[in-house]
């Protein structure tokens, strides 16, 4: 099956997401769609998948003009998509998730589980998957969940499989395993579109590469015509910003965790006897596939989750029993992984968000009554200092762009002169300019003596700015490397639990 998208345009309020894009997919090819965050890749594929309607342009399938009105139509035509955030039902089993929506039926609306099992087993055998059909989604790994998403599509006879940033949640070894699956699918004459911003992967697996920038196609290259520098240039243009890394000025340890264990409500260990320490002036990076405990670790340090055992010390003082408020007073700042749900309140104004962590700072906000003059001038200073684009400090935060919101959050947290900053995925979803701003800021903070714990699923980011790097796997810290010892392959093995 081959597909041609012609002059596709899609406009959202204030932005042209897709601008007259031509894009084609041939049978049995692996076609990479690259660009930085916000370039329009996901929008284009959502149109192909029937989730969005283009404002203009046509789609041809095998030469015939076709309208793809919704995802159901798309899959009937043979087009399926594995999204970045999996569309799975956690408490249902693998089998149930695969057949949901296309269930084999017995009489009276009863489900025919037996024929379902047979059909799925055939697919597993044909493509070489190994999965327990009776496991519940919430109990299997992220890599396995991704396989469930793929089997969902194969069960529905998809011919074209679109993958949106599939490797961001995988260890390096799992990425290899995924690419093996791609090759297998290609062998079976399926086509794959693979959205990514990771150029190394593209060079490894893609047959053709289309580069998008600001909604426009910058070029479509065949594998042998392309190399990483060419692709990077097309992706970003001539302004490839550089990150300046000064020589490290790491000091003494100021923060430590010993024997930290956290259980979830089912009694499963989310953090398993973790010990670590962080020095002033250092960025301590934590790598690991999402869901291995990094986010819980940050929450425990912040005081949002109570551990079953263990101690936390800051500047020699035991803070294990303190609440969030006291920990902040002692000098911990927090850049949360979800800026919209945890980092801010979108219905409140900029100034209201700017002082949310200052309630114990009477000299700023007042003792009982709010000191508005102080508060407003502080908020304005913050907006200026961190270059936050907003009409005024009285605008609602929901109107800010992702990058500006993150700058507001970082600014708010950093302005308390903390001793240690917990940064959870601080550059997630930001465009290149905002990403570099945040990274440079973290480096500046580190150089002024602050300690930073940085969690990210972007291994390259961690390798670039961390002084030390640890890997978390299933709640344990399985390895710690100093800057000179960074070895991507070894780290990948640790992320998969094979070493340490």
């Amino acid at each position, binding site marked *: 099956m081959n597909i041609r998208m012609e002059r596709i345009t899609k406009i959202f309020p204030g932005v042209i997401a897709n601008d007259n894009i031509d894009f084609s997919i041939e049978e049995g090819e692996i076609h990479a769609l690259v660009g930085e965050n916000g370039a329009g890749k996901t929008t284009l594929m959502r149109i192909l998948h029937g*989730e969005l309607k283009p404002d203009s342009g046509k789609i041809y399938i095998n030469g015939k003009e076709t309208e793809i009105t919704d995802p159901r139509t798309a899959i009937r035509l043979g087009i399926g998509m594995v999204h970045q955030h999996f569309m799975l039902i956690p408490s249902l089993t693998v089998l149930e998730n695969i057949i949901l929506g296309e269930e084999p039926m017995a009489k009276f609306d009863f489900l025919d589980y037996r024929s379902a099992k047979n059909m799925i087993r055939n697919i597993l055998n044909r493509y070489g998957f190994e999965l327990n059909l009776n496991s519940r989604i919430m109990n299997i790994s992220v890599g396995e969940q991704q396989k469930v998403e793929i089997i969902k599509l194969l069960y529905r006879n998809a011919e074209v499989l679109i993958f949106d940033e599939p490797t961001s949640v995988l260890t390096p070894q799992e990425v290899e395993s995924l690419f093996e699956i791609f090759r297998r699918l290609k062998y079976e004459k399926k086509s794959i579109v693979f959205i990514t911003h990771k150029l190394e992967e593209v060079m490894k697996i893609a047959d053709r590469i289309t580069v998008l920038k600001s909604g426009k196609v910058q070029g479509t290259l065949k594998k042998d015509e392309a190399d990483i520098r060419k692709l990077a240039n097309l992706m970003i243009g001539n302004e490839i910003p550089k990150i300046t890394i000064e020589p490290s000025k790491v000091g003494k340890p100021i923060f430590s965790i010993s024997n930290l264990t956290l259980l979830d409500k089912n009694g499963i260990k989310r953090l398993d006897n973790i010990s670590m320490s962080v020095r002033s002036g250092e960025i301590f990076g934590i790598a690991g596939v999402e869901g291995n405990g990094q986010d819980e670790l940050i929450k425990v340090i912040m005081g949002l989750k109570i551990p079953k055992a263990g101690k936390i010390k800051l500047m020699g003082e035991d803070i294990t029993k303190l609440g969030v408020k006291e920990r902040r007073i002692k000098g911990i700042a927090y850049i949360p992984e979800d800026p919209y749900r945890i980092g801010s309140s979108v219905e409140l104004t900029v100034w209201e968000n700017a002082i*949310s962590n200052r309630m114990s700072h009477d000299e700023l906000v*007042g003792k009982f009554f709010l000191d508005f003059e102080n508060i407003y001038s502080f908020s304005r200073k913050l907006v200026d200092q961190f270059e936050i684009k907003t009409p005024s400090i009285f605008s609602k935060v929901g109107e800010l762009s992702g990058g500006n919101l993150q700058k507001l959050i970082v600014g708010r947290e950093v302005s308390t002169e903390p001793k240690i900053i917990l940064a959870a995925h601080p550059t997630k979803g930001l465009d290149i300019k905002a990403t570099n701003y945040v990274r440079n800021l973290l480096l500046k903070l580190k150089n002024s003596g602050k300690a930073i714990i940085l969690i990210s699923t972007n291994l390259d980011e961690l390798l670039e700015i961390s002084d030390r790097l640890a890997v978390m796997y299933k709640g344990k810290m399985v390895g710690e490397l100093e800057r000179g010892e960074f070895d991507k392959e070894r780290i990948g093995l640790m992320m998969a639990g094979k070493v340490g």
Partner: protein
Amino acid sequence: MNRTLIPKFKILNLGGILISIFAIFLAFLVGAMIMLFSGVSPLEAYYSLFVGAFGGWINFADTLFAATPLMLTGLATAISFRSGVFNIGVEGSLYLGAFASAWVGFTFTNLPSFVVIPFSLIFSMVVGGIWGYIPAILKVKLKVDEIVSTIMLNYVAILFTSYLVNYPFQVPGVANSMSERISKNAELPRLMRGSQLNLSFFIALALILIFYIVNSRTKFGYESKVCGKNMYFAKASGIDVDKIIITSMVLSGAIGGLVGALQILGVYYRFYDFFSPGYGSDGIPIAILSNNHPIGCLFVAILFGALRSGGSMMELMTGIPIDLSNVLEAVIIFFVTAKIILIFRKSKKGEVV
């Protein structure tokens, strides 16, 4: 652009107010349809309703009199709702506060007015506050859903006060379930001849003003607002969410208790079991309609007071049951919380939730 002007007055949410007025208009329309369906004349009903509410000083005083408890139960509920707590328990603290004030009133009969009245009111607020503390601590420590616990505890409070007045504090020789009468010193002074409007109206007004200032100008007001908008964000920012929840529910209980006391000292002069026609529950629609804003509570309470006071006049004059007012109130809530504009819009592609 530099703005050093500190906003002293809340900028009126014009759009929101227009929507509320439109919703009220729609509700009256629905009410009219119901009346036509049951063979009653809407014009006659609404005319007598309006006259009963606003026709003349006495009627207007009666409207304010009817609005007074609603102002406070609305305020009490709004305090909790604003902090993100769905506290339905004002009715329960109302009953306990009512009994507490009656007890002071008929026990300390020798105290002069300027002692016994404040004592009685404060005592009822303490009792109400303690009652509000129970579901609060259950929520904070054991994550018990406050909607269910407060509804259940309402029944407990109402039944308990009924027990009190039928057993330990029963007036001997009387069939009615009521307590002793409070002393004359404990009565709240009336404001106008011919109407039951009494001092409680100004007490209510004062509290509304106090909480307006608390909400817009104090740390507690700010922290509660943040909790109400996004509790996890509040917690992560270091706001003591548990303390806010408990304080809000205790305050709601205290004000609920005060309402009960004001009704006893100002109207009934003794405690009757099951005396409340649902003042506490009425606080819920008032809080919702006023978007948890104290000044909004004032106006919505006057609206509801008008519906009630006018409604009883309407029933007197035309025989139309006062329940119609309750129907109108419920329909108003339906329309205010709905985004009516959406009825004219086809759902956008990809929009599910």
